[in-house]
């Protein structure tokens, strides 16, 4: 009964059960007592425990492929894969979901009777996000992507009284649908070229590449390019980033950290799974393209962040630059997976924490959050000021903060590639040099946030953070500092978080 295993899909099942419990109880129970918070927290805790069990299982048995039916697997495509990659994604997504929901709790309180719906959307979205990382099948990746995206479109427009929120939701929806369609088109073309939708298994894309010499890869290249564009949109890599600043700015602040961190973790994991897991033999074709996208992201993100006056737009453009740093790791192929996970694990929590602080100062349902409003925050509330400073320094990549370690790992991976494009054996050295330069330039706007907080007027805005937000910010700041000073435990873990 090997195929009847429950553990590989337990993450999704736990979150789905949590969501259904909230939905069903919300019909009959009193909506004024906000009991759905503990239910959602418990679901994420259980999901994290499931991720840990999956990790243990992979360590013991090496993981494996799982099928939908019990008959001879040779004739079927595997639908679920359990490996270090999916297990690490499960643990990371559970943590991001939990901390993200803490950071969004002010917003949940604010939306009143629609709280259960908010929580259900978050739970189901994270189930979809994990689905993207734990399947060898391109169609399942697409369904996971859509599940998460549709939930996030709704979260972006959750505050109905705000025009900015509605505009953000519509913009996100229209552009996101286009990106999803491009991804699906790419999946169809890859299926046309290889005759398979599955990355692993008897009838798989990997098998195809190991038995067939690809002479004229026309359709295959088009398919790969379209899939890359679809996923690059989701991770806000330039030049597919234009939606991000508008959506981040318009969407209710409480939900932005959750949305942006969650989708980035899963979409980068999907890029790694598809391109490094499936198309690793074609790395000469896609490697240079990813390198160019990474370079563009770093340049565009850094320089446009310099001129922003709104902290949400600033964080959006800084996210574009960070997408570039993570893609820099991925051009290295399999060696880049560990650095990618380290970067994602630390960066996703920094984003959640930073937006939690923004949500306190600007208001959880606010659209705009001018940087000037942060003047004197560190004087009015030193605790919040210092925590935010450590998060911002982490993003900037200052030594002894986790962002620095992530960048070093990512650049080292990129520099170690043999025979990259353009011809030469110095690795993607040009990309590393560019990354270092943009990191230094990026200091300007990160330090601007800090200097604004430590100087300037006493703000009249809200500076007293609620308990859930303080938890969220403390957790993310601790992760940033601890893994900045002692990164080795996490590095050891991500070294094993490889796809099958």
């Amino acid at each position, binding site marked *: 009964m090997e195929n009847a295993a429950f553990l590989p899909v337990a993450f999704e099942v736990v979150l789905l059960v949590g969501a259904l419990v909230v939905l069903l109880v919300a019909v009959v129970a009193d909506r004024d007592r906000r009991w759905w918070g503990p239910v959602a927290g418990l679901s994420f805790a259980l999901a994290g425990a499931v991720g840990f069990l999956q990790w243990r299982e992979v360590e013991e048995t090496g993981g494996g492929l799982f099928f939908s039916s019990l008959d001879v697997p040779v004739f079927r495509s595997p639908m679920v894969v359990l490996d270090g990659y999916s297990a690490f994604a499960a643990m990371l997504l559970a943590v991001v979901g939990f901390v993200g929901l803490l950071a969004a709790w002010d917003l949940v309180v604010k939306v009143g009777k629609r709280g259960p*719906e908010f929580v259900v959307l978050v739970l189901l979205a994270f189930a979809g996000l994990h689905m993207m990382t734990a399947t060898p099948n391109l169609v399942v990746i697409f369904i996971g992507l859509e599940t998460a995206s549709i939930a996030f479109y709704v979260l972006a427009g959750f505050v109905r009284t705000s025009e900015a929120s509605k505009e953000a939701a519509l913009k996100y929806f229209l552009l996101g649908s286009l990106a999803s369609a491009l991804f699906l088109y790419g999946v169809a073309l890859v299926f046309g070229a290889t005759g398979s939708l599955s990355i692993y298994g008897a009838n798989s894309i990997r098998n195809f590449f190991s038995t067939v010499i690809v002479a004229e890869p026309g359709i295959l290249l088009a398919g790969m390019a379209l899939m890359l564009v679809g996923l690059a949109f989701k991770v806000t890599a330039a030049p597919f980033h234009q939606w991000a600043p508008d959506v981040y700015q318009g969407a209710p602040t409480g939900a932005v950290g959750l949305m942006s961190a969650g989708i980035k973790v899963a979409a980068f994991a999907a890029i790694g799974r598809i391109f490094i897991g499936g198309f690793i033999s074609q790395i000469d074709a896609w490697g240079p393209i990813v390198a160019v996208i990474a370079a563009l992201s770093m340049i565009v993100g850094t320089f446009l962040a310099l001129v922003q006056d709104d902290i949400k737009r600033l964080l959006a453009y800084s996210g574009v630059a960070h997408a570039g740093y993570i893609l820099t790791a991925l051009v290295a192929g399999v060696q880049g997976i560990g650095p990618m996970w380290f970067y994602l694990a630390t960066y996703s929590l920094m984003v959640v924490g930073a937006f939690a602080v923004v949500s306190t100062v600007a208001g959880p349902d606010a659209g705009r959050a001018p940087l000037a409003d942060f003047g004197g925050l560190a004087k009015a509330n030193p605790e919040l000021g210092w925590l935010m400073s450590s998060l911002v320094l982490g993003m900037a990549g200052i030594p002894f903060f986790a962002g620095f370690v992530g960048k070093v790992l990512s650049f080292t991976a990129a520099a170690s590639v043999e025979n990259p494009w353009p011809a030469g054996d110095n690795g993607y050295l040009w990309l590393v040099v560019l990354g270092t330069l943009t990191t230094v330039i990026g200091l300007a706007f990160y330090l601007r946030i800090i200097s604004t907080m430590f100087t300037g007027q006493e703000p009249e805005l809200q500076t007293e953070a609620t308990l859930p937000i303080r938890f969220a910010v403390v957790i993310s700041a601790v992760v940033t500092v601890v893994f900045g000073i002692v990164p080795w435990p996490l590095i050891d873990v991500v070294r094993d978080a490889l796809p099958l």
Partner: protein
Amino acid sequence: MAEAVTFGIFAIVALAGAVTMLVAKNPVYSAVGLLSAMFALAVMYILLDAHLVAMVQVIIYAGAVMTLFLFVIMLIGVDNPNAYGPRPVSQSIVTWVVAGVFFAAIVLAGSGAWVTGSAAFGTADLNGTIENVADEMFGTWTIVFLSTVMLLTIAAVGTIALAYFTGADDDEAAA
């Protein structure tokens, strides 16, 4: 030969329908364009021996979904198709250039195509009868079939979240 001719005719119908949907000023014409594209696709599916999918295409997409579209168009009203004003010329030039480049790239890639050895990698039995489709759907693809439930739940919850609890129940309005 007959297959190639049928394919050619309905490929033109499908393309014409799709283009009509995009460029028609009147939304009802757009809907009819979409309808003809869907019918032409159904014929393609029959050519590929996917009988069940062809029927599903006609009954669900051309039937139910299009009816829904038409209802929505009628509810919104078809009298003022230019309510949002004309698009700036620069924008539409960019649109056509980008679309043209995209289309050219796909044609280029497709014409340099090396197409799969489906003899080795495709399934042997391609007859899309109900039995075969059911075997695939509830055999290989059960998990996908079930995951779409999650997708539909999200859609329903999202709709409720955006539309329900208005008026007296709305906390935002009260605040």
